[in-house]
């Protein structure tokens, strides 16, 4: 009886989340620094002519890709955060715990900052144009990921892996600092702007790559939800069930890294969403079953990212806030609450 009730509650929650997601998506399309009347937004979305032709471009070429990017980013970061928290059995783990964002930062820093030292930037930008930052970030993230995977095959203890991930992060950020130190203020400005994070940099031309990478990562993640449940009980238990722990770990790390890496590449290192979203879902659905949590995190991540994007442009104010400050301002209360809740629950 209780089980059925619980299932009902879960379905209602999912329905509410989906409605909220739709609302947030429409709101993100309707609100921005340029005020466009709601009926005009709908007119444009229905493919008809609005009063002002500029608005078509604003909705279809600016706000729509931005909102889609927010959904993809929120989803990807939420899911990889959930995977990392379960894998490391650490509530404060997030998508970047293995040094992936530091690796991506190093890639970007090499392109943006070291341009005058080793001319990488010029070569890179010359050939790749708008993809230069994304590819550099992907390569950086992949390098760190590769290292982590190699180490993870030899080191059986996940805690050691976590510490090694942190150490990779320190080493790469040290290299970035050296590059920053020798750079001109304009380059530093560009790099800093990248670290602020943004959903608005993705154009339609880049969207397919971002979408395919995220969907691939999500597919792997969803297939791995059941093994994640087993990991939750304990690695030794998983071993007694005859599961190939090494293989499971490999796929979890791979999918989490693709998700976190590709988002960092296109949107910059976006803080806190990945840590906060899984906690929100666990407390909302009151479960630790990954078959429920995985889809929940997917939707919740998208909702939070859309809200964060909405808050970056305060209606009535012409300037925009950096995305990372907004996600941190949303994320910190959540993580704080989790820590305090755990403390008092003891």
């Amino acid at each position: 009886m209780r089980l059925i009730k619980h299932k009902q509650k879960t379905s209602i929650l999912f329905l509410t989340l989906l409605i909220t997601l739709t609302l947030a998506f429409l709101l993100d399309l309707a609100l921005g620094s340029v005020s466009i009347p709601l009926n005009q937004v709908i007119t444009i979305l229905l493919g008809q002519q609005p009063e002002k032709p500029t608005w078509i471009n604003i909705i279809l070429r600016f706000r729509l890709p931005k909102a889609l990017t927010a959904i993809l980013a929120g989803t990807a970061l939420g899911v990889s955060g959930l995977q990392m928290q379960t894998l490391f059995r650490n509530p404060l783990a997030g998508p970047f715990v293995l040094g992936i964002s530091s690796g991506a930062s190093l890639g970007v820093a090499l392109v943006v900052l070291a341009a005058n030292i080793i001319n990488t930037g010029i070569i890179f930008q010359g050939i790749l144009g708008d993809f230069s930052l994304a590819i550099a970030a992907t390569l950086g993230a992949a390098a760190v990921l590769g290292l982590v995977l190699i180490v993870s095959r030899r080191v059986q203890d996940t805690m050691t892996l976590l510490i090694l991930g942190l150490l990779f992060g320190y080493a790469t950020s040290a290299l970035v600092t050296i590059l920053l130190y020798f750079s001109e203020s304009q380059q530093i400005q560009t790099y800093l702007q990248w670290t602020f994070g943004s959903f608005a940099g993705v154009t339609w031309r880049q969207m397919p790559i971002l979408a395919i990478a995220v969907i691939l990562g999500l597919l792997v993640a969803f297939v791995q939800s059941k093994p994640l449940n087993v990991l939750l009980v304990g690695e030794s238990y998983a071993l007694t069930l005859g599961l190939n722990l090494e293989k499971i770990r490999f796929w979890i790390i791979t999918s989490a890294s693709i998700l976190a890496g590709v988002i960092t590449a296109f949107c910059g290192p976006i803080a806190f969403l990945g840590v906060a979203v899984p906690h929100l879902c666990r407390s909302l659905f009151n479960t630790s079953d990954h078959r429920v949590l995985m889809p929940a995190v997917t939707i919740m991540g998208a909702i939070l990212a859309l809200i964060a994007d909405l808050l970056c442009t305060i209606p009535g104010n012409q300037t925009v806030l950096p995305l990372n400050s907004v996600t941190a301002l949303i994320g910190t209360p959540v993580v704080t609450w989790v820590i305090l809740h755990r403390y008092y629950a003891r």
Partner: protein
Amino acid sequence: MCQMCLAALVVACGSTNDSTTSDTISSKSKLTTGCIENYNSQTDYFPKKASVRYAQGFEVEYHKNYKVVTVKNPWQNATNKLQYILVQCGTPIPEKFSKTQVVKVPVNSIVALSSTHLPHLAKLGVVDKLIGVGDTQRVNTPEVVEKVKTGKIVGVGTNSSVNIERLLELNPELVTTFGTGNPQTDSHPKLLEAGLKVAINAEYMENTPLGRSEWLKFTALFFNQEEQAEKIFSNSAKKYEQIAMKAKAVKKRPTVFTGFNFKGTWYTPGCESYLAKYLADAGANLICLDKVTSSLPLSFEDVFNRAEAADYWLNMSQEWKTLKQAISEDNRYTAFTAVKKGNVYNNNLRVNTNGGNDYWESGISNPDIVLSDLIKILHPQILPNHSLVHYQKLS
């Protein structure tokens, strides 16, 4: 923070060992003509005086053997003024100023941490006094480039990463730099603490092109080169105003927008900025933010909404030399009318191999040339014989 600066200033000046400094200067004075041998308290040692007309940021008050230079607004939201007492070498330091920064003039050696100060030195003919710059690789001023090649000028690092030891080893009589008010990146508090004489040049705080270039006179004060500075500046200002007058008469004022998108953020200039003044004087309307002096981050869609139909697009990413580069970074640029018409000009024609852009170097000192460029772009019929110096058309 600025109170701290002042404290550092006071401490530094109080603790500088004046006897040793004057010793080195007097030994040098036998070689140069700059020092006074027989001081007469009745003599006016500065017969040629500077008068500041456009710059709002500094003023000078002349006395018989010293001048009091005040930098009124050294950086954004500065709470204190900076004051320098420039005392004629060989004459006594006025006692009431013992606690402010005293510099003996004319100075015989200088390190300029900002490349914008280099054209001043070239114009005043004192490049031979220059012994160090921030970054030797990014210099464009020909006289300085020559001296860098012969190894007579040392690079000491730019503002936030100045190599203090190397600077101390050079031991210049004056270091010129700029301040931002951020103690983490500003070098002057440390330099003052080390006992160096540091002059803060706040030209970038000026909101007019002529105001910025008039800081030539500020540099001149330290070399007793007021006469030369007055001559050069009024010549340039006269030219500037003459061509601005011609552009004022135009019937149609094109609309111009500036800047570029980076990940959805587009820095847009304020209508009180020097850039807005430039474009107003060039007979154009700049898309800008009311009552703002600096630039503010807007969203791309906002700028698109304001500038879609604008006639010209100027001053974008320093990396762009072709329109293709711009479009390959973000193809939404093609939706701008200015791009469709091919009216896209960037201020990076003169960039040296290491990325030092002369627009930010000699451009600031020669506003008449920059204005001529702008008028040539926006109203070519006014200046048929001018060929672009800092700007290039992106195609």
